[in-house]
């Protein structure tokens, strides 16, 4: 995005007809023009996103290769802080949107719209409304769910469950969709749809979690674009405490207690690593720790909402603009804590019984070829991505921290790893971070800049983006695991 400097001279080399020049110039302006607002993200100061030239080159190359719109959007700009990951992200996204697959192109974008609408993510909706029309989608569908074929409408139930309570998906849901009839889904189609849904639910988490700004797109040509409304627009959410935060972020590094916070965290990590060998918890204790973590996650947000949201519109009965709700049914359906449902007590998902590597991959790849490899690479990439730094410290092994983040997200979806000591989560993730994680993964639309700023104050923004990536992928994997398990059960 800082190509502006070199572009005038580069333009001189062009051998272009006037017409193309116009087009290019227009393109360029979108990409180059320095924004009047705050850059790609409302949470991250723009200068943080600006990268070294080589990285920009790489990013631009990736965008050219894999972006469906052919332009560098804000998500990509923020993600380009982690180019390695960006590549696998864009590749898999491009594959599911553009490459060989059982669903027609407009369907894919419409499914993306449906998924994003569950979290009222106007950013993603706008993006895919455009793409939907570009790929030859029927404009009428954009009037809402009543206008789409029954087949797509049938996907609504699974979209709803997957987005908020994936553990409720059973093989009956799958059977209902695939059973022979007028509007049935074939299994490959269904798997494609599920992958898309999970991807866009998770991406919505990232969009809200990183405070992605709406694209500055001059062409609001069709009537279907959503104008971001106060209620849920990201920048507005972020704005509500902008002034206060500006001062905060300015003096961030001066705050003593936050520095000692970091030291304390490092200390804890070290201790955990050493203690490992001698301190062994009993099995009962381990399982109580998981339960405790699960239960605690219950109070994490409900407790903190009082402090961080004084506004009533963030309650469950939050008003949703009709613009978004036309793509969904049952808008009131939201995340419900896995731990809360005491009466029915659904069994915990044992991660070892249905893992992505062993089971999920095989199924997905069988029904929708090659996506398995792309997702596999993406999960692996995000899990292993590290720069061995923590804020100002270098040469730190962050494996433990990454694993804690990943497993904590899965814990909130009721997935338990036998070989993980959930006590670690408690030690490593401070309360404000837990609040943030829970909000971003479960109710991303409620994320505020204050939440984003309140944890890990002395960490770099790129590290916080890394956290967001981890949360996003963990959430996607959790959704996929539940959905694929249901499909497996349907098959057996």
């Amino acid at each position: 995005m800082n190509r502006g400097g070199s572009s005038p001279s580069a333009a001189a080399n062009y051998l272009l007809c006037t017409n193309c020049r116009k087009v290019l110039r227009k393109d360029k302006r979108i990409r180059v023009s320095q924004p009047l607002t705050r850059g790609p993200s409302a949470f991250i100061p723009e200068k943080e996103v600006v990268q070294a030239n080589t990285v920009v080159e790489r990013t631009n190359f990736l965008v050219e290769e894999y972006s469906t719109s052919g332009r560098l959007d804000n998500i990509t700009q923020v993600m380009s802080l982690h180019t390695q990951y960006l590549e696998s992200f864009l590749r898999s996204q491009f594959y599911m949107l553009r490459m060989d697959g059982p669903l027609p192109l407009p369907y894919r974008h419409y499914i993306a719209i449906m998924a994003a609408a569950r979290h009222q993510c106007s950013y993603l909706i706008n993006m895919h409304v455009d793409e939907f029309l570009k790929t030859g989608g029927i404009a009428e569908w954009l009037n809402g769910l009543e206008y789409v074929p029954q087949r797509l409408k049938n996907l609504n139930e699974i979209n709803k469950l997957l987005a908020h309570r994936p553990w409720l998906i059973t093989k009956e849901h799958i059977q209902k969709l695939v059973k022979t009839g007028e509007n049935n889904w074939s299994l490959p189609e269904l798997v494609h749809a599920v992958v898309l849904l999970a991807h866009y639910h998770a991406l919505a988490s990232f969009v809200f979690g990183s405070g992605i700004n709406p694209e500055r797109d001059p062409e609001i040509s069709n009537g279907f674009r959503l104008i971001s409304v106060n209620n849920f627009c990201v920048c507005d959410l972020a704005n509500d405490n902008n002034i206060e935060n500006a001062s905060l972020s300015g003096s961030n590094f001066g705050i003593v207690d936050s520095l000692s916070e970091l030291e304390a965290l490092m200390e804890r990590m070290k201790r955990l690593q050493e203690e490992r060998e001698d301190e062994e918890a009993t099995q009962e204790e381990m399982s109580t720790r998981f339960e405790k973590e699960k239960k605690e996650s219950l109070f994490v947000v409900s407790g903190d909402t009082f402090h961080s949201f004084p506004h009533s519109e963030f309650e469950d009965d939050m008003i949703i603009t009709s613009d978004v709700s036309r793509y969904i049914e049952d808008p009131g359906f939201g995340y419900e804590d896995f731990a809360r449902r005491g009466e029915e007590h659904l069994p915990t998902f044992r991660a070892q019984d249905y893992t992505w590597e062993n089971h999920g991959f095989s199924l997905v790849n069988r029904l929708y070829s090659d996506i398995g490899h792309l997702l596999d690479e993406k999960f692996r990439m995000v899990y292993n991505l590290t720069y061995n730094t923590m804020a100002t410290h270098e040469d730190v092994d962050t494996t433990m921290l990454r694993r804690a983040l990943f497993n904590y997200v899965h814990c909130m979806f009721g997935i338990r790893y036998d070989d993980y000591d959930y006590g670690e989560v408690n030690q490593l993730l401070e309360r404000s971070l837990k609040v943030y994680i829970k909000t971003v993964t479960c109710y991303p639309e409620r994320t505020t800049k204050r939440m984003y700023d309140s944890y890990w104050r002395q960490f770099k923004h790129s590290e916080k983006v890394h956290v967001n990536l981890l949360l996003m992928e963990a959430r996607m994997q959790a959704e996929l695991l539940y959905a694929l398990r249901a499909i497996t059960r349907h098959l057996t």
Partner: protein
Amino acid sequence: MEKMSRVTTALGGSVLTGRTMHCHLDAPANAISVCRDAAQVVVAGRSIFKIYAIEEEQFVEKLNLRVGRKPSLNLSCADVVWHQMDENLLATAATNGVVVTWNLGRPSRNKQDQLFTEHKRTVNKVCFHPTEAHVLLSGSQDGFMKCFDLRRKDSVSTFSGQSESVRDVQFSIRDYFTFASTFENGNVQLWDIRRPDRCERMFTAHNGPVFCCDWHPEDRGWLATGGRDKMVKVWDMTTHRAKEMHCVQTIASVARVKWRPECRHHLATCSMMVDHNIYVWDVRRPFVPAAMFEEHRDVTTGIAWRHPHDPSFLLSGSKDSSLCQHLFRDASQPVERANPEGLCYGLFGDLAFAAKESLVAAESGRKPYTGDRRHPIFFKRKLDPAEPFAGLASSALSVFETEPGGSAMRWFVDTAERYALAGRPLAELCDHNAKVARELGRNQVAQTWTMLRTIYCSPGLLPTANLSHSVGKGGSCGLQLMNSFNLKDMAPGLGSETRLDRSKGDARSDTVLLDSSATLITNEDNEETEGSDVPADYLLGDVEGEDDELYLLDPEHTHPEEPECVLPQEAFPLRHEIVDTPPGPEHLQDKADSPHVSGSEADVASLAPMDSSFSLLSVSHALYDSRLPPDFFSVLVRDMLHFYAEQGDVQMAVSVLIVLGERVRKDIDEQTQVCGGRGRLPLKRFALHPDSDRQALLSQEHWYTSYIDLLQRFRLWNVSNEVVKLSTSRAVSCLNQASTTLHVNCSHCKRPMSSRGWVCDRCHRCASMCAVCHHVVKGLFVWCQGCSHGGHLQHIMKWLEGSSHCPAGCGHLCEYS
């Protein structure tokens, strides 16, 4: 080793007996292992850990090792192994990373012996040393392998794979110090137990995780590995570089692999997902499993040969909570069901035929082929005479040529190019196509087109057509239901057949009732139909005498074809019945209940297209006079299409389908939807269900794909594309949606242009400029191959009207084809 063989020979003396049997467990099993006495088996899972005695008739629970009020995670087993030297020693790997050993000799109820809590992540595999009593090896998700001496409290040595999770560890049976480990990233490593610092050898065996490995019990250096990439590979480790000896492609990711005792080339596999069967493969014959056990209803998680020297007993545990003993002689053998003959037509009628050598040798003298016979080419495999199927595996391939100079397929190309399929009114299309057919000397086809025109393009039928249209729909729904019922359970019950007929009859009688709004009385016109039946039948007899070449085929072709869309068994009796029964008025009254009606209907249908020239034409004229709605003929047209398709003339079938479009589609679709609508898993390569296969063959889709295939083999790309575009079936029109990307390289820097097809982002130049208008060409670009100048298609065409020189001014005399 000496010790080992002594023990086993002693055991080998006892004779194992038993039968195929299974018992229900309380919970899904994750792994099983057999005691060395071959009389006990241990089953371990997340919530089960039991020892069963294998008796002659049944499994008997002997011991429950899962004791204690609150079962701990240490008992949630991922793997279990029984020591092959010590009957009392067991080891389990727990999902929480603990390795537990069990001593059955302990007097207390709790047999737990030792607990090793050194691994940080789930332990995937444990393995005892085959001859040492105290050496245990474990491999874990954390990427480490540990070797334990059971006499000590903690591990003796730790091996770091330097990569991702360890999925399997196996001690070599022959080399005392060697063990192999497999990894999630596809690597296999070979270690010396004395050297924990680095592995002896490492190679990449699979794409994706290697779930399992097994050393060959006899061949020193053979290691079998199975991976998520659905392959089983056999490696020779004795050479300097691990050499892939054999590769078996399975249909699902391979979870376990075990060499079959006493059979040098056999191994058993089970899969991680989707596929529940256990296969025994002969690695030299990697395409068809030698045996298959189909008892389990969910994925098989553990397999073990009951005795290290007995090849006929296999034990298995499964996620469906059952433990099975399989007897080799009870296994199903897919080879027996496979068709060992292969037959393929070449583009110009050449025929290649592969069959068992013995068969060809015996019968080649009597083959009735009239065509010029080339030297048959023989492919012989290298045989191992010791193997039972050696005779089966050798086959011969012969190629038969059609008569030289046979322009046999010329008509096909001409027809394909000249037919008009859309864009004009139906009548014109039919006329045009009839003309084409006639010019090519295909009178029957021409006649068919004329008839179609007659049927579908007659005036004044609209009101009744509408009415009966809806009724016909109702009828077809009923049919569809019946069909799907038939598909589900293929029991050749007569009940379903008669019901089907009845529904057919119903549909028709309804049509007829509503038809009364038309000018003629229904009874009358039905009588006419029935009446016309008899002469047609009579005529058939006549014709048979004249031209038996074609009509001799008829009973074989049309009749099996007709029931195929219903049920195969009943066609002939029905038909005979009709010949015997004279059609009378009393028949018509209760015809809704009588199966004869549909039978006679079928007769009309199957007869119709054959005697096209005279008899039927008159019939259809008679019918037309009585103003029957076109729907009345849909059955007939459908059967006509089937007839052509069966004859191999898919061109006709598809062309008619396209030209008639909506008018006939729903009738044909009855079959198509049932076959094509189900979510299809990739078909197994073997064990195809014969019935479902035949059903699929019948579908309209199949006609389309074979026609398109033919067109493409004749390089008639434009026609094939038109067909794809005009096709009404979703699966076919999807053909054009796949691989639609056209990759373009920049003409200057030779690198791919990704974002736009017409401007290179690297060298910032436009790749293709029009020589006429000097603008960028974004669509079709045409250029002269001589001077490589070109431009917009229209511009160049226009330019060439005025001048034959290159528009770029290079002086070249451009040539365009």
